[in-house]
């Protein structure tokens, strides 16, 4: 989002990344906050500073979040992959094991999975696709009062016989002939169900078209259920972002981890990325750092209790000793302190040191590298990523 904002402003950003991660791991939903009570998320976020004054969302505000979501939705809409949903309340969508997961926005291909609708579901999958068990998902949904039944489909004769990943299936669903064959099977299996859930593998080229084809053949609503990574919805987002950023003059360099940076007089001047035989030098006027938190690789820890930021060595807010990293209970309600470790910033998302002095004037920080939130128990990973990324990009585009 940050690179997109800068590319659209004509800043010709270069996006350096160690690899592919965030997009390919996400289920594709926009998780703003893990509220399951039906509360208005804007109200929840507005009241957040009362209990957590330093929460990351406070840096961007509800307006910042809404602006980011508007831009994101326009982006995916233009790529024929529209998102639906609302900040008024979360929708509960089924997971691959039949748990209920709150999400504010989600691809239109997941919309019919809303478990608050009463319609009976058929959950269908393939033996060949591991980690997606329709009977298990259906049983768990049934136990939670959602009318659901699970079936396995038979793969029509295809060229592949050995290795099946989510991508193998996405390629298959890109083929209209394959959709016809699967659609026919689903029509026969449908019974009294009026909606059918499939693993989120309905193609990389035109998932909405695939959904419509299956709906036409079966006469039922079709919805996708996120799978384990690599996530096809995430890969669609990667393609959409890559194409959009490149289209407006940005450059992506995947496989180039930033190892260090140097600066003078409170400004970062140069970063160095890993490359064959020697580091590659990159000079720029402004830098946006979004390397992720502990899970994403932007923060590392070791057995001595050391916690450090990997790209620029910026100061972190983190528990002082290793004994303070974890709560006694693994599933502690508010998560573990170490996962809140991150960079503290001023209102302009510029990094601060332990004495609240700005480290660099021309660096802004976005995403889960920021301290102040623990996106996993709070279920705000993608909401924060969009909001802070877009906001950081806006802050830099108004510089100069």
């Amino acid at each position: 989002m940050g690179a997109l904002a800068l590319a659209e402003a004509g800043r010709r950003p270069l996006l350096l990344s160690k690899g592919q991660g965030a997009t390919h791991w996400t289920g594709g939903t926009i998780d703003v906050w893990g509220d399951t009570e039906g509360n208005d998320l804007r109200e929840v976020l507005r009241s957040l500073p009362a209990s957590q004054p330093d929460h990351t969302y406070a840096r961007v505000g509800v307006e910042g979040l809404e602006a980011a979501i508007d831009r994101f939705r326009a982006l995916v809409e233009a790529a024929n992959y529209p998102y639906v949903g609302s900040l008024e309340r979360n929708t509960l969508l089924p997971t691959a094991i039949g748990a209920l997961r709150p999400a504010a926005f989600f691809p239109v291909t997941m919309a019919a999975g809303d478990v608050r609708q009463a319609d009976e579901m058929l959950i269908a999958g393939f033996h060949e696709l591991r980690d997606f068990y329709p009977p298990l998902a259906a049983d768990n949904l049934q136990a939670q009062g959602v009318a659901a039944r699970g079936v396995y489909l038979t793969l029509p004769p295809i060229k592949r016989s050995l290795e099946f990943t989510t991508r193998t299936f996405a390629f298959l669903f890109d083929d209209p002939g394959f959709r016809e064959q699967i659609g026919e099977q689903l029509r026969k299996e449908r019974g009294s169900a009026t909606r059918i859930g499939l693993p989120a593998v309905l193609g990389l080229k035109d998932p909405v078209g695939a959904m419509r084809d299956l709906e036409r053949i079966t006469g039922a609503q079709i919805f996708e259920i996120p799978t384990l990574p690599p996530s096809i919805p995430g890969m669609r987002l990667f393609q959409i972002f890559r194409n959009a950023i490149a289209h407006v003059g940005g450059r992506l360099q995947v496989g180039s981890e930033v190892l260090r940076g140097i600066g003078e007089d409170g400004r970062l001047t140069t970063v160095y990325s890993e490359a064959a035989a020697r580091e590659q030098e990159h000079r720029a006027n402004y830098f946006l750092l979004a390397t992720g938190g502990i899970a994403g690789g932007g923060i590392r820890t070791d057995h001595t209790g050391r916690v450090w930021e990997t790209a620029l060595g910026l100061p972190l807010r983190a528990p002082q000793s290793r004994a303070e990293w974890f709560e006694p209970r693994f599933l502690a309600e508010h998560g573990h302190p170490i996962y809140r470790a991150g960079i503290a910033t001023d209102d302009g998302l510029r990094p601060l040191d332990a004495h609240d002095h700005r480290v660099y004037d021309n660096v802004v920080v976005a995403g889960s590298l920021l301290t102040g939130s623990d996106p996993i128990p709070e279920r705000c990973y993608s909401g924060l990523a969009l909001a802070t990324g877009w906001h950081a990009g806006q802050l830099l585009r108004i510089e100069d």
Partner: protein
Amino acid sequence: MTTNIPHHDHIELSIEHSLDHCIKCNICSSACPVSAVTDRFPGPKYVGPQAQRFRHEQQPSPDESVDYCSGCRVCNQVCPTGVRIAELNARARGKIIEDRGLPLRNALIARSGLMGQLGCGPHAPLANFAFKNSAFRWSLEQIMGIARAAPLPTYSTYSFRSWFKRQSQNSEPRPKATKQVAYFHGCATNYYEPHVGQAAIAVLERNGYEVLLPEQNCCGLPLLSNGAFPAAQRYHTSNVEKMLPYVKRGIPIVGTSTSCTLTLKEEAPEILGLHSPEVRLIAENTFDIFEFLRLLYERGELNTDFKPVDRTLPYHPPCQLRAHRVGRPALDILELVPGLHLNESTADCCGIAGTYGYKIEKYQIGMDVGAPLFDFVRSSGSDLAVCDSETCRWQITHGTGVPTQHPIEILAAAYGV
């Protein structure tokens, strides 16, 4: 695994650590262009970090499908945790070859210098006739397993080195340049495409460089990718000896074959575990030509006196260039040429992967891998495509019928030479 690996060897460390670093997220498997099109290769995760659990020096190799890895390194690029999967695969293949020996076909096609000498020179028309003759290609396929449809390059009637020697004897002595580079031409420029080397020299001279031509041999990459490590090591050691005097005098090595420059920089040292100061010195002072030109540009030293070239061309950054991890230097420089616009392909690989696509059992895989790129080039409607790597250029032309040039030829044209 291979013995005598020093402790600071990245790949050996990566092999040791990969079981910890690999989080089994399968991003590599979802990016691999080979497993996308064939069951013969189950994907980088399985044959790399996964199979590594079962590899032991004293044990037979647990997974022969590693031979279907094309070495394109897309897996390395996308891995979020930095596992060097392609190198794990290369070493695993090396172990299989060490145990069983190199098949004759692979021993032959991996010696690109020898193959080049065979047909380059005044007798080139004869060699080209033979290699274009369908009966000859059929027998070559039957006897040797070299796919009859695969795009063997056209031999040049003269070698680049012979041209260089002639023109330095014949031409007027040039005003002494203060700056020098040593040019690594590689086998393709020497035996098949001397025009690429001629363009490189013209461009470097336009920028005030005297181009020196060190003695050199094949970089050894085809041997490396066929698992013939001892021979590859001899080639590399020989190149290091030949080029060391230049580097020691502060003269950088610049190459137009992006796979050769990658081999000098990283492939040979890392896959073979060579880490002597001499090997490192060569690695650190070798540059792909556009990487070098971009450095000149960044220092404000590039001659940007370009004539307009009003063209929009499809450009494919080859896997070997991407493995340098230096971005898209050819795009960075060529976008300075007025009127010229390059459309970058997002296709992962052209499918040829050096010698991979020449093998009868892999030819169709290579063509299937290249299909998205061929579509991209064809749908551009252009009568010319651009790519930094020679075998990829031949494959693109083979897959599309569109002639393909090295970006240095485009740049030379922009200088009006």
